[in-house]
């Protein structure tokens, strides 16, 4: 389990103003708690590719957004990511719910194919990333911001456990 409130605290520490994304199972509680968080606005998108473009506009307008989507949406939104956050050199931190992570265990026969595609895709797209498995890993969010700001490129943190 990952604490939604501790993730939100980490985002607040970074001065995040907007969370742009689309809800999923792993981040259900995180989205619910974000709706109650006065210091950030949640912008809901209809399809994940919109999130990168909206976040890019927010950043150029002086705000500090994060993108919060599921790994299925990551795969869908490749060109939007490439053409906005990456091409515009936006230090965009993205939080990606890692559906199917547990199915990658060698002991599990039935793999979730989106999990099999996730990390190879991030590597192919040159997106630095870390996988959060528990609350002790939440400082990975701060590190992602540092990487993104130092490189003027996106960086990702994968949410591999259900938020609660």
């Amino acid at each position, binding site marked *: 389990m990952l604490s939604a409130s501790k993730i939100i605290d980490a985002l607040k520490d970074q001065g995040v103003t907007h969370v742009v994304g689309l809800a999923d199972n792993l981040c259900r509680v995180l989205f619910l708690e974000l709706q109650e968080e006065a210091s950030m606005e949640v912008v809901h998108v*209809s399809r994940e590719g919109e999130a990168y473009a909206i976040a890019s506009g927010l950043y150029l*307008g002086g705000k500090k957004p994060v993108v919060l989507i599921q790994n299925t949406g990551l795969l869908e939104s490749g060109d939007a990511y490439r053409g906005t956050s990456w091409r515009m050199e936006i230090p965009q931190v993205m939080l990606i719910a890692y559906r199917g992570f547990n199915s990658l265990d060698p002991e599990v026969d039935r793999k979730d194919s989106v999990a099999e595609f996730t990390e190879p895709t991030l590597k192919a797209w040159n997106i630095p990333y870390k996988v959060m498995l528990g609350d002790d890993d939440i400082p990975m969010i701060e590190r992602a911001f540092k990487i993104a700001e130092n490189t003027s490129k996106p960086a990702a943190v994968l949410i591999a456990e259900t938020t609660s």
Partner: protein
Amino acid sequence: MLNKYTCLEKLAALRKEEVVVTCMGSAKPWEKLSDTALDFASVDSAMGHAADFALGLAIAKPDRRIITINGDGSMLMCLGTFVTLAQRPCENYTMIIIENGTYEVTGNQKLPGVGKMDFEAIARGSGIENVVTVETEEEFEEHLPWVFTETGPAVFIWKVEPGDEGVPSFEMSIADRAARLKKALAK
């Protein structure tokens, strides 16, 4: 049917401090009319997402009008944007859809749904109330000032003749255009 180039000239003549986001078939014609830090060509970017990008600007800068000049092919690639715009309404957001029924910059190939699809109906059905389809010179003259004043999200659909723009390219990279816009908006 309207002429795209004439419409853009008339829009540029009235434009003051608004941000104008262009893409595809409007990018190069607009560059000839205006190339300030508040003009952003969403070129060498991601087709279909100029309107989303403009929404981000509009949320960040509620006191400044953001105008996006979208193509019909680009709009068709991301129809969900209408719903996103309706659920996060920005009074300062104006979208113009230049509807010529073709993918102009790749050789005017016909768009899917031409003659059947109705952007105004889709926008209204998505929850956007201020939507106008403009087909004649008289309608254009009447509605042009509204582009700058209508409560957003406002959508203006300009029915134009197909043009002959090629694939747009810009000397300044999109990263540099983005940095220029960010600096201008910070003032």
